[in-house]
């Protein structure tokens, strides 16, 4: 029929069809640029991390800086927790400049109030140098709890539901008072019993008694440096099974986790082989990565080498730092990204199915884009709501005197944002994001979420010995969105581990899963954010709950926070 039309009209129809395709589809190239503003000060986020650095260069000083986004008071808006440092060697915090800070979201208006005092989360009087944070409702009481990893004993804070938290570590049995140096942690239901279990990484063996007098670096004033991880012994990570009733049991041995010593930094979770059991990725520092495959019921086998994520394509063990484990190319299979330290480049592994990953660092352009930079926490996020997850990286080197050893390196770096072009390639748009995004710092923790429920994500980032930043997107096309707040009934109440598949009218499918663990030391919004681009609705939303229940919702309108409860069947 079109063939019978006059050429001019036929041509016009083609042009209109092409324009309609661009309008309806999620074409990343069609998105205009945007900027971000650091509104921390305006929002009342005055937190300044103090790492209490010493001339002795204790290794935990350059770590830490944890940040967590979670709604502690169930008012529907994300609140923020930052962890602080502590003075060595006792790590007993008594002064406000060493306290953790809990900020309550005062929405509307995106301002925060420091509600640390009386919350029980300040860390006052509790020994330990904070490193990481994990948030999750371990007792399914509807209120998110907080687990803090320390150099020292870890601490589990139970959310009392009234704005206060209680240290329940002793009762829960999750202090980990063996080897002191812990890093990241995450909540994960490893056996799908409806209760969140707890996974914690050990960094390496370091004690004041045996290692405090190690001297690394040149013996010149100012040149002493933090020791390289290679000089310390590796340690296995730890898995605690939630018994229900507020207690946990260390199941590292029986789960298989204890078999594999490493130097764990970041942790992220995903069911990478879609077998219904959540798997765990741990990025190790200058040691082979771990991919713990959940064989079912929380019994793990470390398969990094079989999966191809043991090392990068050249067989190098980089200085693994933060990581994320989400589907970045919308093929339904979770992919892996992790940061490291210059001159290594951040690494992207694409999941090719059948348990095999392929290093696509260079074909994606991330290799050359990142080889001159160092990064800590990271997260896949879709700032421009175009349906393709981009990558946020908190920049900074590990060594605060790195420039003395190599003038080409920078200790303080800005954050980085790598935009997913939807064709397997990424572009570094950091420089386009405005002056606030160019400020160098010793960035560490990252807590991403939609703090004002407007469909556009915000990123809270901690900086060692500096005030935190809070980036809010400004300008550019808004893009449609959907924010899914899942509530498990048979599954764990947070829905951690639930897989989401969203079919869009254009034919594109988006894939996500619920997790609060990302990057290193950090925790993000448990709600699932989907950027929909120009799509005004989701044709079909499928949720596969950890219980095995598959839930389908059709014709979901865009631009809403959708509460979803797990059905009985």
């Amino acid at each position, binding site marked *: 029929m079109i063939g019978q039309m006059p050429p001019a009209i036929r041509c016009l129809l083609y042009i209109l069809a092409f324009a309609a395709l661009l309008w309806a589809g999620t074409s990343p190239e069609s998105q205009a640029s945007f900027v971000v503003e650091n509104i921390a000060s305006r929002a009342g986020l005055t937190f300044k991390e103090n790492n209490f650095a010493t001339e002795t260069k204790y290794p935990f000083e350059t770590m830490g800086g944890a940040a967590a986004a979670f709604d502690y008071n169930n008012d529907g808006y994300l609140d923020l927790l930052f962890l602080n440092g502590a003075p060595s060697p006792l790590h007993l915090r008594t002064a406000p400049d060493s306290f953790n800070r809990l900020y309550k979201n005062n929405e509307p208006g995106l301002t925060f109030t420091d509600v640390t005092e009386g919350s029980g989360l300040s860390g006052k009087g509790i020994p330990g140098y904070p490193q990481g944070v994990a948030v999750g409702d371990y007792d399914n009481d509807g209120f998110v709890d907080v687990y803090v990893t320390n150099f020292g004993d870890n601490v589990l804070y139970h959310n009392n539901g009234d704005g206060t938290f209680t240290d329940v570590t002793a009762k829960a049995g999750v202090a980990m008072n063996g080897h002191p140096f812990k890093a990241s942690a995450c909540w994960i239901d490893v056996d799908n019993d409806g209760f969140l279990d707890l996974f914690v990484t050990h960094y390496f063996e370091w004690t004041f008694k045996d290692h405090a007098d*190690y001297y690394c670096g040149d013996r010149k004033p100012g040149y002493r440096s933090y*020791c390289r991880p290679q*000089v310390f012994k590796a340690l296995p990570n730890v898995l605690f099974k939630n018994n229900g009733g507020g207690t946990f049991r260390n199941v590292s041995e029986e789960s298989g986790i204890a078999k594999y010593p490493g130097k764990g930094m970041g942790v992220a979770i995903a069911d990478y082989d879609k077998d219904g059991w959540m798997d765990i990725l741990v990025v190790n520092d200058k040691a082979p990565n771990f991919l713990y495959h959940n064989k079912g019921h929380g019994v793990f086998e470390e398969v990094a080498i079989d999966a191809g994520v043991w*090392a990068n*394509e050249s*067989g190098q063990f980089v200085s693994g730092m933060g990581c994320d484990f989400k589907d970045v190319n919308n093929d339904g299979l979770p992919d892996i990204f992790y940061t490291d330290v210059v001159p290594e480049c951040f690494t992207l592994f694409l999941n090719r199915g059948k348990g*095999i990953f392929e290093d*696509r660092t260079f074909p994606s352009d991330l*290799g050359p884009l990142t080889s001159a930079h160092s990064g800590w926490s990271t997260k896949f996020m879709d700032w421009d709501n175009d349906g393709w997850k981009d990558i946020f990286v908190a920049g900074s080197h590990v060594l605060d005197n790195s420039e003395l050893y190599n003038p*080409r390196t920078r200790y303080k770096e800005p954050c980085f944002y790598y935009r997913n072009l939807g064709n397997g390639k990424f572009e570094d748009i950091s420089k386009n994001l405005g002056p606030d995004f160019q400020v160098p710092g010793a960035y560490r923790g990252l807590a991403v979420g939609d703090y004002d429920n407007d469909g556009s994500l915000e990123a809270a980032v901690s900086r060692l010995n500096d005030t935190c930043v809070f980036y809010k997107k400004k300008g550019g096309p808004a893009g449609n969105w959907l924010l899914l707040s899942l509530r498990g009934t048979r599954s764990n109440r947070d829905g951690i581990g639930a897989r989401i598949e969203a079919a869009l009218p254009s034919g594109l499918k988006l894939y996500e899963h619920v997790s609060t663990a990302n990057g290193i030391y950090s925790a993000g919004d448990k709600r699932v954010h989907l950027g929909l681009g120009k799509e005004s609705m989701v044709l079909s939303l499928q949720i596969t709950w950890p219980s095995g229940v598959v839930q389908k919702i059709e014709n979901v309108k865009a631009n809403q926070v959708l509460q979803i409860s797990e059905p009985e069947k």
Partner: protein
Amino acid sequence: MMSRKRSGMLALAGMLSCFFFCPLSAIGTQQQNSPRASKQDQAAAELNAGLRAYQAGQLEQAIARLKRAHTISPDNPQVRLYLGLFLYEQNKDNLEAQRYMESVLDQFPAHGDLQLRLLDSYLRARNEAKSETLVQQLQARMAADSRFAFNVIYTLIRHGRFASARREIDKVSNNLQGEVLFIGGLIELGSEENPRALDLFEGAAGRGFPPRESRQMLTLADSYFRLRAFPQAAKAYEAFLANHSDAAPAQRFRLGMSYYGYGDFERALEQMQHVKKEAPETPEIDFYLGSILIELKRPEEARPFLQAELKRDPASYKATTKMAYLEYLAGQDDLCRQWLEKSMALNGKWFETHMVYGLLYNRLGEYEQAVKSLEACVREEPEYPKAYFQLSNAWRRLGNEEKARQSLDRFNQLQDAAVSRVQKARGMSDKPPER
């Protein structure tokens, strides 16, 4: 039988005969018309008479004539010299002799007999402080003249100063050993005994030979380079270039290659950029600039250099393979394969061509082909760790766990060795640090 004193006198006279007549007669003829010249003449006459008496074995008379000469011309250094030496002959721990010898020590810096006799006199007088100081003063000459050093040490031994003698003989031995080891290294290198050559060169360098400013430093650098001892080569080339502004670009090129050889790519790039600016026609300069930029993870910056290399030498299989690798990195698998086919046609034995084929086949899931290519790679370059890593991956995908493990073990072994070499070159270590 001749007395010991008499034999010593004759030896002294024989060794120093030129001092007896030549200079003094010259002074006498030049200054004969002034009153001062007259005094000099008298002093010269007395000195010559004293020396003749000494030659005749009349030590007492010789000393008497020299003392008269000293009275006439008290500042005359030669009179002081021989008076000191003759008084020493008369009484070896004579303090007066020591004073005369000390007074002219600086004026006769090459006078070994003066120095040795003064040392002997101090040691006999048990003047430890002065003997130590004198040995220190003699270090430069000892370093330059091993025979003289031997005589100093022999003197120390005769007086039972074994600790000092040991210290000095160690120094002399080191000096000589440096040269001997260096020559030994060259001989072994010429005989293709490379490990032995490397040991000898390192031994020589450890003993400060060759000196940084010498041209032999270039020989050492080139030798290290030939031995693929790249960290040592880089150090030697740096020393040579720092002291020779006339060095040829080829030497800087090899410095760049040395850095490249042990993975210091930033420094390698700096040197190669320097060469490119100074001598753009240097063979393979574009190839190495491209290769270094790839290692620095800047593939798109590498591309124009490799294209330039191919323009200059279209038959460069090495540059052709690098182009294939660039396309592999860019995810352009078809283009990668096209470049590889070209490279194979140019040289089917180039290890890197097989390596990139192996990478490509692994990416494409053609694991049997990957194994073939990677095995060809390690046949040509048996110590290339990355090939074993990829080979391990290919075997694993094919389900051959045993072969996968063997390849991985070999990878770990080679990679550990490579990492250790780099760390050693950069002064790093995985061992627990010092406290």
